[in-house]
Every structure is written in C-alpha cells, then in structure tokens.
C-alpha cells in the first residue's frame, strides 16, 4: 500500500485525567479507526496517555500568516485585558 492513498491525521493525547488533550503530532492512516490505533501504537507506547483524539488534518481550519495583523496585533495595546494590569487593594492578599 502506498502512503499517497493514506490520509493525514492530527493526534491529541490526554496524559492524565483532569488535564487537557494536547497536540502531540500527526500520522497517516486510512480512516479514523485506524488512525486511533496507530496513535495508540505510535504515541502512547510509553504510557503517555489515558485518552486519544484524532482528527483529519484537512478538517482543521487554521488561521493564516496574513491574518496575524488583524487577528493578533489589536490586542497589543489593550493591557487592561490582563489581570496584572489592575492594582489590587492590599487586603486582597493573594489572588
């Protein structure tokens, strides 16, 4: 079987209960079922995970480099959106 007939999948692993699934890499497979098994075989063989998500890479809608200016630059001058911008009254000790 040639690799060109396979699809690319992105793999997300939850390493422990309570944590988020994290992107760990990608792999080739014919369908979701096989992708899940290969993810198990390629990414969890040293007990890295308790749950796996796989998703077709082509189903991911990603922001583009040319979007950066309009997407991300506008927040550069809005420090009041960060909690650290606010001075806390002394009685509020640790927040």
């Amino acid at each position, binding site marked *: *079987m040639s*690799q060109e007939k*396979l699809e690319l999948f992105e793999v997300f692993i939850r390493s422990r209960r309570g944590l988020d699934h994290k992107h760990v890499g990608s*792999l*080739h*497979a*014919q369908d979701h*079922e*096989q992708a899940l*098994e*290969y993810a*198990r*075989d*390629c990414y969890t*063989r040293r007990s890295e995970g308790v749950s796996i998500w796989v998703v077709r890479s082509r189903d991911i809608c990603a922001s583009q480099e040319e979007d950066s200016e309009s997407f991300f630059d506008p927040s550069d001058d809005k420090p009041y959106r960060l909690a650290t911008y606010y001075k806390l009254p002394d009685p509020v000790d640790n927040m």
Partner: protein
Amino acid sequence: MNDDDSKQATLAYALRLGDDSLVLGQRISEWVSNAPFLEEDIACGNVALDYIGRARLYYGYAAELAADGRDEDDFAYLRSAREFRNYLIYELPRGDFAFTQVRQLLVDLFNTGYLAALAGSRDATLAAIAAKAIKETRYHLRRSREWVLRLGDGTGESHRRTQKALDDLWGYTHELFEPDALELRLAAAGTGVDTAALKPEWKRALAAVLNEATLSLPADDWAVRGGRTGYHTENLGHLLTQLQSIHRAYPGCRW
C-alpha cells in the same frame, strides 16, 4: 498425579506456551523496517514485543519450576528445533502482508478464547500471565480483524492474496484444537486449557469476520501436525539460527 509429576507437567506446559510466544514474536518482528508504511511498522513492532514479553514470563516461570539453574535465556537460546514445542502455524515464514494478518486473525481469535480460559487456571502464575496477555491479544485482534476486512473486501489483488493466505494456512489450524495427553491432564486438573472445547466459538467468530470480508472458509481437506511433539517444518531451524546466533557465538553476552 503427585506433586513432582504435576510440577514437571506444568514446566513442560509453560515451555510450550513460551515457545509459541517466542517463535511468533520473532516472526512478527521481521516486519520491523519492512512494513508497508511507517505507522504499521511501529504497530507490528509493538505486537512482536508483546509476544516476546509473554515468552519471557512463561520461560521465567519454567525456570522457577525447573529450579536447576537454567534461566529464560537457556530455554530461548540453547535448545534445538526438535526441543521446541510451538504450534507449526507460528513458525511459518511471514509471507506477504496478507499472510501475516490472516495468521494473526486465526491465532488472535484462538488466543482470545485460550487466554480467557487460562486466566481461570488454578495455577496462580499461569492465570496472572494470561490475565495480562489477554488485554494485549484483544488489541491484536482488533488490528488483525480490521486488516482482514480491509484486504479481503479491498481490491481484486488484495482479495485474491488474502484468500490464498487463508487457504495456505488452514491446514495448520487443526492441531491448535487437538490437545495431547499432557494438556488434557492439566485441563482436567484445572491448570491448563482443553483447546478442543474452544473450537466451536473460534470457528463461529472467524466465519463472521470472513463473511464480512467476502472471504470463504476453506475446506478441511488437509492438515499438518507435529508442533507439540517437536516435529517441525523446515522453517523453524532457519528461524532459530537467526534468533540464537548471537547467544551461541557469545554465550551469556549482555548489552
């Protein structure tokens, strides 16, 4: 059966199971760096390691029962082909990818029933090994079942090759379900497994997969036997030559 007889019988039994695991593990490991694509290569390596790990557990237990200074390496590396007692189906060359996956389906289904029964053994060590191994085997079965479906119900060529593999392997499946006196004795004692009892369910589950894969169950018109008595095909000698070469050239070597 007195205690010593029973110990000797369990030792022989553990060695048989160790031989099955080691020989198949070695065969599957031959796909490492040769599999159709990278992901499958790693998956094959994982399955091979599951079997090698299983062989170590069985041989380790055999060494404990033998209590004569032999260890797992002695059993794996210093016995000749005539002393191995694995079923013949495990030693057949890996063939093409269809052959490997059809063999896996046949033995994964067999082991699913076998290990479930062995997990209830009165022998606590055998039961513990089986309880660990059956989890691996259920995963192996998931893989081999899906591959046989893909290949059987795939292209004209993949269908032809998969059916041919099944036809070529079929005659080696019969001895899996023909327990000898030792195995029957241990089964009666609640230690071992009577494989004859596993056949109806094995065949039913197999027929269901083959039907979905558009493959046909071969006729029972030939059979090859001999693994459990040490009469092997010519393939085992070649396999052991490679498997044992390092240990025989450098006895006791470690790295």
